[in-house]
């Protein structure tokens, strides 16, 4: 049974590789793959569908086109390259599509488990529901309730939601991009290739599963950290009332220190905590992927010397496997750290010092 499954997976892999490799060779590929392009493709966001509310199109050559040096959100139609000026840019990018995948998976897993448990809460309801319940209880007891003093449902809900969202998006970033595999199979069957190049949108099939790390984007981690920062203030006002404004400074501080201490304790401290959470999650999730890609790029760097290639390639594959296993650990650890520090920071402002 097990060997049968492995053989099927390998067959699919080889068929895809064979079909795709054949179509690739027919085009002229005399250039070495540039490492910068690979990094940009794997780590940076790019639009799949264009969607801009309002605004107007600025074409190449018109004033205001060349201001952005990165040329990330530039599209192309029959009149040439253009980008949007003004309006609300809501392009459906790879990360947005991936976030929908994460959200759908979270809904499927938790609604199914909750229904199974709700049938008979005192009974063991199968492996799947039990596994979800164990994780849930771990987050509730060891992360939320041990660091916050009698948190209300709002704070518990935030910590649980943040934990599972971060965990799922960290782990799904390590999965292969099923959307791109489906696009490869589709294009090799129909022989229709999506146009490639600057300003061209990729095939919409990629949107099924773009396979990019959601938490590797500063906008996502900024939003999560902003929730925590707002909840630090909210918990202070909810549990201490208006006194929180002057109780933010520890008792026993001489009165002439208040002008310095109060802004630091009340304004700068929650903002610095949120900033630290944002950068920590982002940098940890980006760094692992960069290391894996750098190890993979050694193979192409040493491909000039045929003698060394076999040696370097085997070392690289070993290193990549090791880093990948380490990344699974980091995915769990960062979800744990993010919610643990969030609940500690929120719990700190629930009592006067």
């Amino acid at each position, binding site marked *: 049974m097990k060997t049968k499954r492995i053989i099927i997976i390998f067959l699919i892999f080889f068929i895809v590789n064979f079909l795709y490799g054949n179509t690739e060779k027919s085009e002229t590929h005399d250039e*070495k793959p540039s490492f910068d392009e690979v990094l940009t493709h794997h780590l940076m966001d790019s639009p799949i569908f264009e969607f801009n509310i309002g605004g107007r199109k600025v074409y190449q050559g018109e004033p205001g086109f060349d201001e952005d040096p990165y040329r990330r959100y530039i599209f192309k139609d029959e009149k040439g390259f253009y980008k949007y000026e003004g309006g609300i840019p809501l392009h459906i990018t790879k990360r947005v599509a991936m976030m929908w995948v994460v959200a759908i998976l979270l809904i499927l897993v938790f609604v199914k488990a909750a229904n199974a448990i709700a049938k008979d809460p005192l009974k063991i309801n199968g492996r799947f529901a039990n596994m979800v319940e164990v994780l849930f209880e771990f987050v509730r007891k060891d992360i939320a309730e041990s660091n916050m003093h009698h948190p209300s449902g709002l704070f518990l809900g935030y910590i649980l939601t943040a934990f599972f969202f971060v965990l799922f998006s960290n782990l799904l970033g390590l999965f292969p991009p099923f959307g791109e595999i489906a696009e490869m199979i589709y294009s090799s069957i129909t022989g229709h290739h999506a146009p490639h190049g600057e300003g061209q949108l990729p095939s919409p099939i990629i949107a099924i599963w773009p396979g990019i790390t959601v938490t590797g984007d500063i906008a996502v981690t900024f939003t999560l950290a902003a929730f925590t920062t707002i909840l630090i203030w909210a918990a202070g006002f909810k549990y201490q009332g208006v006194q929180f404004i002057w109780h933010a400074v520890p008792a026993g501080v001489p009165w002439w220190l208040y002008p310095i201490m109060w802004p630091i304790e009340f304004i700068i401290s929650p903002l610095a905590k949120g900033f*630290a959470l944002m*950068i*920590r999650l982002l*940098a940890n999730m980006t760094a692992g992927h960069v290391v894996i890609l750098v190890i993979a790029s050694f193979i192409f760097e040493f491909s000039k010397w045929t003698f060394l290639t076999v040696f370097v390639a085997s070392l690289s594959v070993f290193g990549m496997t090791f880093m990948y296993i380490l990344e699974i650990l980091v995915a769990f*650890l960062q979800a744990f750290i993010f919610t643990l520090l969030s609940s500690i920071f929120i719990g700190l402002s629930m009592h006067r010092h």
Partner: protein
Amino acid sequence: MISLAFIGVGLGIGLVVIGAGYGIGKIGASATESVSRQPEAAGSIQLAMIISAALIEGVALFALVIAFQMGGKLTVEVLNKFAEKPAVVEQTGK
């Protein structure tokens, strides 16, 4: 002289790694020591270890992000502006 800026970025990253490695190493050393002294408190010691390691790591990552920003600022235009002679030729690498 502007080429010293590259050395600055590299040195910055190296110093950050030295500091963070020393800090996390001390945490790990004292955590293993205290677990061996009191094995029944291993759970809470591990928790405290992870929290303090994460806080040190956060500061180290701030510094790394600033170092990367410095590296990103060193474009060909900036280098040409400050270089005395000769002008830097962009290497396409293709």
